[in-house]
């Protein structure tokens, strides 16, 4: 993966606009978070192989290398992910954005693909 290139990511978001796409969205503290540090509250989510269509996708932020991406959906809904630092386009043409925390562990993810993700 490479650290986010804002221009390149925006270009990719534009490419998937106005067509049905599959997404993987994930935010996670990890299930060991409160085992390792009692002050932390475990929270997380993942949504996988959800089909949506967005009419506007944009990348914002960038302070200290962490970005936000928002997708405005055709039905008026939203997808919002905070804390993205890296991106890749893999051999299956899946557009992958990940956010790594200060320990180098995955904290957030937004992935977009024309085809379903591996089940």
């Amino acid at each position, binding site marked *: *993966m490479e650290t986010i290139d804002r221009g390149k990511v925006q270009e990719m978001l534009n490419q998937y606009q106005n067509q049905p796409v599959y997404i*993987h969205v*994930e935010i*996670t503290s*990890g*299930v*060991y978070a409160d*085992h390792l540090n009692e002050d932390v509250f475990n929270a997380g989510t*993942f949504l996988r192989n959800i089909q949506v269509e967005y009419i506007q996708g944009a990348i914002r932020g960038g302070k200290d290398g962490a970005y936000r991406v928002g997708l405005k959906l055709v039905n008026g809904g939203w997808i919002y992910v905070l804390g993205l630092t*890296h991106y*890749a386009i*893999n051999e*299956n043409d*899946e557009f*992958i954005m*990940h956010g*790594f925390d200060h*320990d*180098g*562990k*995955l*904290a957030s*993810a937004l*992935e977009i693909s024309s085809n379903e*993700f*591996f*089940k």
Partner: protein
Amino acid sequence: MEKERHVLVVFPHPDDEAFGVSGTIMKYIDSGVPVTYACLTYGDMGRSLGYPPFATRESLHDIRKQEVEKSAKIMGLTDLRLLGYRDKTLEFEPPGHLASVIKDMMDELNPSRIISFYPGYSVHPDHEATAEAVLKAVEDMPPSERPALQLVAFAKSTLDDLGDPDIINDITGYEDKKEQVMAAHISQTGPLLKRLAAGTVEGQEAREAYLKLEQFYSYDID
């Protein structure tokens, strides 16, 4: 360690076998006991994607599959079964499903001992779901046919609640190979391997913790 007919190891994630059990697995294999390792998921929702990251959420599946295959090879384990459930989802499978899968394996292999997690003391929901499924499968057997249960517990309250572990395996002689097993899971173990290799007090403590003894609790189902 007693001579066993067959040992069945059941864990949810590739690398669950590495930290507290691989020395024991190797000792069984080297003494001629057949060992089967059933790993329920590919650990494909793990937060560690390498240090620095070399995997993605999408490639982690294949990478961890290769890692656990390498781990098995180092241990000399020939019966590795990857069941392919999605990481983090085990507790949401229909009630009884995993227990029946484990029951089928027990019917096939007739193990005299099962190594898995201790219910209530294994921290991760997938660990707990695995422990519950193993217990349910064993409970459903006639008492005389039940395998012995040897369970891993590591919740903070373990010592207070369960007392000292009653199965302690000395893995002297297996230090290097166990380190290789942990290194096989390189997407997950980078920082730990660094600690183990460090010539510091912390490094010494890590070596004491991982490379000398493996500790378990036996579990009486009644």
